[in-house]
């Protein structure tokens, strides 16, 4: 490029620095979103793969009642299995010195003489267990940190019926619990209320009545069978059926694995969609800007052509604007992305115990970010360049032909048009005579509004979900889980505990539900007839009573099994007599967490061959709290397996998601604001520069800057107002789409459309539009309108 043209380029850009700044911001956000998300996606994926590989995450888990070691070795010879190792997994109540509340946990065994073949521990502090039979324990590191425990401390553990005193020798983390939630499910890790402890194999076998046997198998599949997990697991379950197989879980369905997997998948999708939105808007705005530039520089283009510059050098010159904008925006975006990536990595480190999740700079991702930025910027400048080079020298030197007149279609609606004053007529004609620019404005505010609303709607969905599950369906203050079913006499005992005002029994039974080829293993909850603390609701929030015979299914389960009310389903409990029966589905209820079903507690007890039993009690207490007196009474009961307080669970979810959601809202609103602000300001400034002369004339005629601004603002408000309305509609549709997308067996996201969120989104957007208009007003007030009136033709 000639030096003169290079100088022209730099000065042209410098003169438009204000407009370019907002454009740079929009592009930088697009590139930053890509670089940051793709980067953290790779950081996290690499860290996960290395962790799973180096610490040998198992391919599947089989839970059973009791399998002798010879049976475990035999099952390892099944086709498709490379190796299997048995271990003990035992629910445990952890008893810490100075902590009144017993803590739910799980105790896992470690082989006495070797490292475990699967799910090896990554030691964080201290050492491994010194020898077989020692009363030593390794604690999950996050749990230890939450309670300030370190090697050398002592803890108590309630294993089966007896309390054990254990010496903490080390803390560790495992690939099995990257996302530390109980196997029974949960949404957010709560290391203060749920812990994993590791004990020596022989020690735990003895305390669990499992001498020489195991109740959980971990295994690896041969690579040939990696895609046939289900079949291999079916074969294992069949072979080991005499030993009471209760659950087979391929790793893909394991909670921690699944949460991490879902997070990575979501991140990947977002790292593609978000940049497209921002760069797309950026390209459209750039198009408007370059189009205007070429129009303004017609005579310069003509002169250059007359002086002998060929088309190619003009193409190169005007494409350079795109290159300059793309490069600057891209480089700023890479810087933003680097920051975003390290921030996101820090947030993920809070949620996931993933060693090696640290920030890395990826040159290739940065390069791709820069390239897509360039690509979009070139696409955005293409049309203007094409117009510039199509001009013939002589034609280019003449002033542009005045904008063709003529009426717009809307004017045919005489009764309507006649009522409009000249301001509205001018606004409407301007809108319809610059269809491309109008569509860009409309589209930008549509996108921005949809973005804001969808973000708010996700927060509403989480609120709704938590309110539904933890307030409307469950109303108990606490629930007490027991190791074994007990008869209903225990209810009287529970009711007489200090501070308890109301209690009711429940029975949870793991069952296989089968409908033709479709099978699902779930826990059925047996509810009493005078059920008051746990009320299943249908999708409209109406209470559904369980029938004396048959089942009530939650929606996702009914979908998976392809069942509807009135259908029959085969039911086989995994405990007790394990007899198969056919049950009728009486109703389908709503649920957003896990898969479950309800039945009458008497009906379920009889399936187990009992009169009426319960293994969980729900209770209300005075003030909804657990007094120390109550807690110490509960601690004395060795049969207790779990204890949870509804309010605490809710508060924990709020704490975990509240912060993330809060920063997500702020970031999204800023992003959307940049789109809206950038688009409004740029289109307003372009139209202002086109109509400078008109502005001057109006000022001469006695219009105040505010009155002139209102003429321009009218157009912007009309387009953006329509964009906001369409954006709300798009946001509603997007939320519905997301709720379909986030519908897994672990959790579902409802589509929640609240008028308040619609209003807040619209008002926020309006605020951005008005803010941009205020800037336009300031520019207009300072505009040298006398200059604009000087004869330029």
């Amino acid at each position: 490029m000639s030096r003169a043209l290079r100088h022209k380029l730099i000065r042209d850009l410098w003169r438009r620095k204000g407009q370019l700044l907002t454009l740079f911001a929009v592009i930088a956000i697009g590139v930053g979103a890509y670089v940051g998300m793709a980067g953290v996606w790779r950081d996290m994926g690499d860290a996960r793969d290395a962790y799973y590989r180096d610490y040998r995450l198992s391919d599947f888990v089989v839970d059973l009642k009791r399998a002798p070691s010879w049976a475990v070795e035999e099952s390892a010879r099944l086709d498709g299995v490379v190796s299997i190792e048995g271990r003990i997994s035992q629910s445990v109540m952890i008893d810490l010195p100075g902590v009144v509340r017993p803590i739910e946990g799980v105790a896992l065994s470690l082989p006495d003489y070797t490292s475990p073949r699967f799910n090896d521990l990554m030691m964080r502090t201290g050492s491994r267990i010194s020898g077989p039979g020692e009363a030593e324990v390794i604690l999950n590191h996050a749990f230890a940190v939450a309670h300030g425990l370190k090697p050398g401390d002592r803890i108590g553990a309630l294993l089966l019926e007896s309390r054990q005193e254990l010496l903490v020798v080390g803390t560790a983390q495992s690939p099995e619990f990257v996302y530390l939630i109980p196997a029974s499910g949960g949404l957010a890790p709560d290391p203060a209320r749920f812990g994993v402890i590791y004990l020596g194999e022989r020690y735990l076998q003895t305390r669990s009545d499992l001498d020489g046997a195991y109740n959980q198998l971990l295994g690896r599949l041969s690579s040939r069978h990696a895609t046939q997990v289900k079949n291999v697991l079916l074969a294992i379950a069949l072979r080991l059926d005499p030993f009471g197989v209760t659950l087979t879980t391929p790793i893909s369905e394991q909670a921690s694995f699944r949460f991490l997997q879902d997070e990575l998948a979501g991140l990947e999708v977002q790292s593609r969609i978000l940049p497209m939105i921002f760069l797309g808007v950026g390209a459209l705005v750039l198009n408007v800007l370059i189009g205007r530039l070429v129009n303004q520089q017609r005579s310069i283009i003509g002169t250059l052509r007359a002086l002998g510059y060929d088309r190619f050098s003009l193409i190169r010159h005007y494409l350079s604007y795109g290159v300059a904008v793309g490069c600057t925006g891209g480089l700023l975006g890479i810087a933003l992305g680097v920051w975003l990536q390290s921030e996101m990595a820090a947030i993920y480190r809070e949620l996931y115990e993933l060693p090696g999740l640290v920030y890395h700079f990826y040159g290739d991702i940065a390069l791709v970010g820069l390239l897509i930025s360039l690509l979009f910027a070139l696409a955005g400048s293409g049309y203007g360049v094409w117009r510039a080079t199509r001009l013939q020298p002589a034609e280019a030197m003449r002033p542009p032909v005045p904008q063709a007149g003529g009426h717009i279609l809307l004017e045919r609606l005489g009764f309507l048009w006649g009522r409009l004053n000249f301001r509205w007529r001018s606004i409407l004609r301007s809108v319809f005579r610059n269809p491309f620019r109008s569509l860009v404005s409309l589209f930008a505010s549509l996108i921005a509004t949809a973005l804001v609303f969808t973000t708010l709607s996700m927060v509403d969905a989480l609120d709704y979900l938590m309110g539904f599950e933890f307030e409307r369906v469950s109303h108990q203050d606490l629930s007490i889980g027991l190791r074994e079913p007990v008869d209903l006499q225990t209810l009287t005992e529970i009711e007489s505990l200090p501070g308890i005002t109301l209690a009711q029994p429940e029975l949870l039974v793991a069952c296989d539900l089968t409908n033709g080829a479709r099978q699902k293993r779930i826990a059925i909850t047996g509810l009493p007839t005078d059920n008051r603390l746990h009320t299943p609701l249908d999708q409209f929030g109406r209470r559904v009573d369980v029938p004396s015979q048959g089942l009530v299914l939650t929606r996702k389960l009914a979908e998976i099994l392809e069942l509807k009310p009135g259908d029959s389903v085969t039911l086989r409990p995994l405990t007790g007599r394990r007899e198969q029966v056919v049950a009728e589905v009486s109703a389908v209820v709503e649920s957003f967490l896990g898969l479950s079903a309800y039945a009458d507690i008497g009906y379920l007890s009889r399936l187990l061959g009992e009169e009426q039993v319960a293994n969980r009690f729900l209770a209300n207490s005075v003030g909804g709290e657990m007094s120390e007196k109550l807690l110490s009474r509960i601690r004395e009961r060795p049969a207790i397996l779990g204890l949870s307080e509804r309010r605490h669970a809710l508060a924990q979810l709020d704490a975990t998601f509240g912060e993330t959601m809060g920063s997500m809202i702020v970031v999204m609103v800023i992003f959307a604001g940049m789109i809206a602000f950038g688009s409004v300001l740029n289109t307003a400034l372009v139209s202002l520069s086109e109509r400078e002369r008109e502005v001057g004339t109006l000022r001469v005629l006695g219009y105040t800057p505010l009155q002139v601004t209102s003429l321009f603002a009218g157009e912007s408000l009309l387009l953006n107002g329509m964009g906001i309305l369409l954006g709300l509609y798009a946001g509603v549709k997007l939320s519905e789409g997301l709720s379909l997308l986030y519908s897994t067996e672990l959790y579902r996201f409802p589509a929640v459309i609240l008028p308040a969120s619609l209003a807040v989104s619209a008002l926020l957007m309006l605020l951005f539009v008005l803010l941009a208009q205020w800037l336009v007003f300031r520019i207009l007030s300072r505009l040298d309108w006398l200059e604009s009136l000087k004869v330029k033709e």
Partner: protein
Amino acid sequence: MERKILLSVRNASRIFRMGEVEVPALRDASLDILDGEFMVIIGPSGSGKSTLLNLIGGMDHPTSGRVLYEGIDLAQATDQALTEYRRHQVGFVFQFYNLAPMLTALENVQVATEIASDPLDPGEALALVGLAGYENHFPSQMSGGEQQRVAIARALAGNPKLLLCDEPTGALDLATSRQVLTLLVHLKEALGKTLVLITHNSAIAGIGDRIATIRDGGIHSLQENARPVPVDEVTW
């Protein structure tokens, strides 16, 4: 009959600062404009005509000196007051018409009547300039002469006392120029307006009641024109 002074420019100077250079566009100029007269201000390009017009029209403040309109000093007026002055007291006609391309002839006139305190009916204003029936035409559908007549209708429609015309025939051919000038003179008489016309074209000067010649930023001469030339006889 002695006419009263409508507007009086007193020792007005206007100096533009271009970087470090001071460019005086108007130097110590004094001029009275009488109520109801037709004054032509003539001068070559760069002589300061437009600067003087800007001061008279309330579009700019002098660097020094005064501009008195009915006793009020425009030199001291706020921007808001000048806006009010332009809105209610002055009508402008430009060389290139400056019509809004998005608006029809009628709507262009409404632009002025909307904000005026005592406007004419926009349709009647168009009829006054001989454009009845052109209400729905857009500027791009009209000839230069027709566009300039719309501009005149717009200037009159606000019902101002003072009509300022900056090279109103500068973009028109002779025949059309004569029509426009005839119209201006006729309307001035019929509606009793004060008309100030700025031009570099000495052929036009003879049609005014008084002729001010401006040169190098100062009023060079001011002559009474006892026998204005009929517009039909103007030629160039």
